[in-house]
């Protein structure tokens, strides 16, 4: 099968998946009942009588008396048009799409840092345990991997917050402040920062914007704010990436070209670095993206504990405030991230390994 054919096939599979995703979210919102859908739109200051009238209007406006599939059609139409409804939470009230634009950049920043940390730890340790199979290093990384998948995320976050961000326990260690993405005092009067919305320009990602404007103190403050949540998020995916790197590396080390290199007398260090690791990395990098996207749900807990204003933080407050718009919006966004990660990984994999295409 040609690559283009494969890509088209894969896109065709994507469509039912995306429709399925919206159906699930749609059915869930409908399962919650009428009040959950129209709740955010009701004006609490109105009298009971007026509220009843307003309720009737909203039911009409949302077509809640129509058959379910008609409702789904209207729902999809609104989604496509970018009309994702309202969110009313303790941290933000307004259109869902605006909330996403507000919180998403922070989560992207968190995810990038976490991914870098995860790869920096997982790749060398995975390589080491593959090269020295059953050695102490191998056993130790194996144990760490087990702990990694067994650790409650909320607990790790709590412990880290307690250890590094609590003045009473360890004043000297209090280097990673809790809450926010940056020390707001540093930004007073900065033209590239909107104090009211808490957004920086042009990318909305604080670390990058600070670098663009050459503001090193702000950059350092941003790093200090993101490092703890990022480390927690990274830890959850390290185990998987490490084990994957280990098996990929072991497979590569058994390849003929690696044996040939050894037979030629190439030093072991260079064999591993130049011949084996490069090739072992390709599948790991592709798959780790997917692994990571799957664990991204963890930000709901992590951002809540570290008071880091990202998508997870918003989801948490939507949950606490019985805000259906927020839950719906964030579920779709997280779904889209995972679906696209899956798609990209599949395509990359097909490019790397043509056998996949034949298998389909």
């Amino acid at each position: 099968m040609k690559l283009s054919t494969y890509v088209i096939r894969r896109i065709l599979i994507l469509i039912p998946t995306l429709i399925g995703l919206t159906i699930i979210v749609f059915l869930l919102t409908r399962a919650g009942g009428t009040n959950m859908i129209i709740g955010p739109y009701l004006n609490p200051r109105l009298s009971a009588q007026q509220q009843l009238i307003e309720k009737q209007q909203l039911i009409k406006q949302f077509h809640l008396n129509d058959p379910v599939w008609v409702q789904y059609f209207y729902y999809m139409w609104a989604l496509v048009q970018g009309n994702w409804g309202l969110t009313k939470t303790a941290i933000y009230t307004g259109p869902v799409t605006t909330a996403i634009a507000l919180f998403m950049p922070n989560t992207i920043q968190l995810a990038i840092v976490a991914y870098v940390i995860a790869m920096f730890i997982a790749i060398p340790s995975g390589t080491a345990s593959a090269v020295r199979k059953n050695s102490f290093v191998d056993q130790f990384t194996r144990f760490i991997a087990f702990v990694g998948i067994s650790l409650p995320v909320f607990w790790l976050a709590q412990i880290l917050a307690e250890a590094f961000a609590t003045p009473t326990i360890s004043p000297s260690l209090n280097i990673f402040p809790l809450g926010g993405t940056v020390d707001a005092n540093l930004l007073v009067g900065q033209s590239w920062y909107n104090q009211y919305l808490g957004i920086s320009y042009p990318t909305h990602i604080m670390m990058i914007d600070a670098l663009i404007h050459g503001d090193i103190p702000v950059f350092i403050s941003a790093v200090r704010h993101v490092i703890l949540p990022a480390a927690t998020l990274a830890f959850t995916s390290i185990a998987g990436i490490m084990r994957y790197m280990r098996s990929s590396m072991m497979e590569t080390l058994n390849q003929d070209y690696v044996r040939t290199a050894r037979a030629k007398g190439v030093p072991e260090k260079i064999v591993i670095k130049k011949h084996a690791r490069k090739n072992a990395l390709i599948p790991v990098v592709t798959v780790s993206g997917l692994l990571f996207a799957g664990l991204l749900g963890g930000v709901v807990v992590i951002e809540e504990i570290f008071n880091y204003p990202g998508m997870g933080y918003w989801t948490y407050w939507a949950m606490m405030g019985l805000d259906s718009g927020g839950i719906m919006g964030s579920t779709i966004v997280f779904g889209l991230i995972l679906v696209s990660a899956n798609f990209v990984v599949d395509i990359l994999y097909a490019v790397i390994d043509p056998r996949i295409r034949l298998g389909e």
Partner: protein
Amino acid sequence: MVEEELIIGRNLKKFFPIKTGLTSRSNIYVKAVNDVDIVIKKGEVVGLVGETGCGKSTLGRLLIRLIEPSGGELYFSPPPEVLNKIKSNQKLSDEELKNYSIFHMHKNKLREMRKKFNIVFQDPYSSLDPRMLIKDIVAEPLFSFGWKKKDAYARVQELLEKVGLPAEFMYRFPHELSGGQRQRVAIARALSLSPEFIVLDEPTSALDVSVQAQVLNLLEDLRKEFNLTMLFITHHILVVRHISDRIMVMYLGKIVESAMKDEIFKDPKHPYTQALLSSVPIPDPRVKIERIILEGDVPSPINPPNGCFFHPRCRHAFEPCGFTTDELIEPLRFVLDNKRNPEMGNAEIQEMNVIDDLNMEVTFNNPVQQGVVESIIQKEKEQTRALYGIKEISVNGNLLKIKMHEPVDPKLKDIGNEHLVACHLVNPPEIK
């Protein structure tokens, strides 16, 4: 031997679709079994010989409907009046098809029929469920037909004895047995319902040579004891030399020759059979045989050659065998070269243009003579057999037009003495 037909297959076909495009539907098929007629008589052992991938295993599976056919009819021991109709190529009524054609039978009736035939597979390691005890493996067909446990296990013990295994093997797992022992278990399972017909799909090729002989002897004994009809599939003609009565040779999904064993070894007619036999060592220093080495690879069963499927590799292929213009391109470049044949003068091939399977045009840089080209083709024919496919040529200045002979599909024809061959050498068609 009673001359009674047990199995009659007509136009058997099995095509496997290949997924290529966007949709899951496709019109590209591997033609594993391509329009095969087959008759197996009661009590007979038929050896089915062919190279890997020629469709012999698929044919074996079709004969017991282990895979769904793509076409054709299969009859198992039909009553005389139906048999006559089949033999005289009369159309059977729907009712008769439903009752007697294995391919049209109702599910329940087919289930009943399964008592009468079974199969032994090539790989004794994957053909026994690793999590079942031998007694349950052998008894599986019995349980399918509602045998009671006690009776079934008594039968299993009896069967194990028949295939030469001690009774305590009943309580073993397959992984505790050797390859030969496993194959004996598989044979016991196939025999458990006393079937009339057994397909043996390369039952010895996964075994050590010493064990092969034992298993072959066992099959020989069992055959005599139970008057079994067997289809013995193998890629190695020597394996079936001893055991079989008749041998069929298969090539690219078709049976190309079928004859009694002695006949085929003495007087093979089809060039492919001749090639197969020439590779068999004969333990007699006085016999000198010329080894025929087949050139080229087996063509793809997805897109088999025109006419006779064997013609691209055949040493005797001639006019009607189905040469096409594609096959002519290389040979023409070779023989119409003025370095090889100086009579071409200063004419060199400039362009070759294939119009269709049977017509093509060759353009030269200088004019050529029709007589010269004709004589070269005549001269080179014996060496380059594709030139036989040329029916007529006409030269017009620089342009050479070539027309090919129409391909004729060779039919499997009886040449007497129950010897069937599908080859134009034996049954030459009229060359138009």
